[in-house]
């Protein structure tokens, strides 16, 4: 989480580019130099009211190369990847992809998320995909709620859905699960995922 103190200093700008910007160009196929600084992303963002750094400012921080600040900001974990920003951006800057990239980066560097149980959910979900090739909602929510010690969280809703036939307790698998496993093997070994 960023604190006001994180902004209490004179920011030295000595580069016209930053390593982070180059990485984003390469991995997110997005050139943030194209940003017009218009703020349409922040204006339309469905969660901007709970962001510590709004999307436009995220782009600005990338320009300045303030990677440390970006990786510990709360917005990384309150962004729901609704894609409104990229949909409305006049320069088609793919902010959700950038957020994804930053989240992965924070995860790999063991920087804790500012919201509870994010890593747990991430690991369980990927584990399920690896096992079944898709996400079985019933199993995932039971697993997640037990491991996060929220035993009764979705019980009522889950029962209702079960009796209406909306929730299948037996996980379905994709036809070619070997293909999914091969995909996972081909991804270089990193911290789970």
């Amino acid at each position, binding site marked *: 989480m960023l604190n006001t103190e994180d902004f209490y200093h*004179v920011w030295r700008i*000595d580069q*016209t580019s930053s390593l982070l910007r180059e990485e984003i160009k390469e991995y997110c196929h997005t050139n943030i130099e194209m940003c017009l600084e218009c703020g349409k992303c922040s204006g339309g963002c469905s969660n901007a009211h709970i962001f510590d750094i709004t999307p*436009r400012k995220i782009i600005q921080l990338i320009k300045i190369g303030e990677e440390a600040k970006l990786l510990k900001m709360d917005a990384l974990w309150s962004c729901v990847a609704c894609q409104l920003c990229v949909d409305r951006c006049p320069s088609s800057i793919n902010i959700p992809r950038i957020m994804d990239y930053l989240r992965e980066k924070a995860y790999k560097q063991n920087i804790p998320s500012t919201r509870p149980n994010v890593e747990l959910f991430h690991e369980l979900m990927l584990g399920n995909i690896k096992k079944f090739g898709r996400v079985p909602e019933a199993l995932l929510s039971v697993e997640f709620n037990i491991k996060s010690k929220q035993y009764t969280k979705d019980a009522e809703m889950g029962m209702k859905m079960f009796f209406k036939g909306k929730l299948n307790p037996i996980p379905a698998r994709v036809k070619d699960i070997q293909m999914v496993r091969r995909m996972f093997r081909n991804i270089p070994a990193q911290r789970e995922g």
Partner: protein
Amino acid sequence: MNNSVKTALIIGGGMAGMEAASKIGSAGYNAILLEKEDHLGGIMKQLYGSFPRWDNPQELVGQKVKIVEENPNVTVKINTTVKSVQKKDESFLVELSSNEQVEIDAVVLATGFGFFDTSEYGEYGHGSFDNVYTALEFEGKLKEMESWDKKDLPQVVAFFKCVGSRDRSKGYPYCSKICCMFTAKEAGLMKDINPDAKCFVFYMDYRAAGKEYEEFVRSVIEDKHVRYVRGRPAKVLPENGKLMIRAEDTLMGVPVEVAADMIVLANAMIPSEATKELAQLFGAKTDQYGFIDYIPGHPTQTGDRVFFAGGCGFPVESLGAQYQGAAAAADVIALLNQD
């Protein structure tokens, strides 16, 4: 010069004046083109590059000078200014600095603009610190840099926009219109000369209203990698042989600093002294700042038989100056045709 036809006097041999003179000459009237310097070309002649097409300004000026000089009806008088003016019924009796007297039927003022005195902006250190230049000085510097050793070239160059423009406290609340474009151009040219240089442009907003202008500025940002920092610099202080710039990044709301080797000030364009004097001599209308003003409904006319074009009316880019020169010429030709 043909004594039986009417004569127009064009004052100022920049792009606007040359355009007006050549058009009036081509229409068969006599055109006398006055230039106070020893060569034609005005500001354009002092430039290293042009926008929005990166054309060589020397070539553009050269072409225009050739057109003017080849026109048999145009008489160019360099090193010449106006001494006094006497209005007769439908003409002016003008005494030139060469003590020559000419009788003219119409006049086109094309005296161009002047520049804001940067000493009013002491916080930027122009004149007291080394390596702080005005935009026009920097054009000459760019020319010099062509032959410099790579190690001598500046590594970090900062450009300040709105130096004087949009400053009520200094009496210039208006936008000088072309600084956004020539600053982008100069930053881009700096990157061409030294691709390793880091160029920062401090801006409040960039105003690129014109054909190909927005694309031009974007190409400077995206292809030449000039970094635009939003905020008006507050001060410059020398520090360890560098010029430390303090400003706010208004997009982040944080104070920022940049250590630069060279600073270029886009100082405001103001009415030149010559414009003010001539406006009085010919009875031209002027606005609150001293720029030549137009008569409502007559965009190139400012008084009885007095027309104007180019930067003496308001800062304008070279292409716009030529448009205005041609428009003023059309009005002069129409008037002389009626006489």
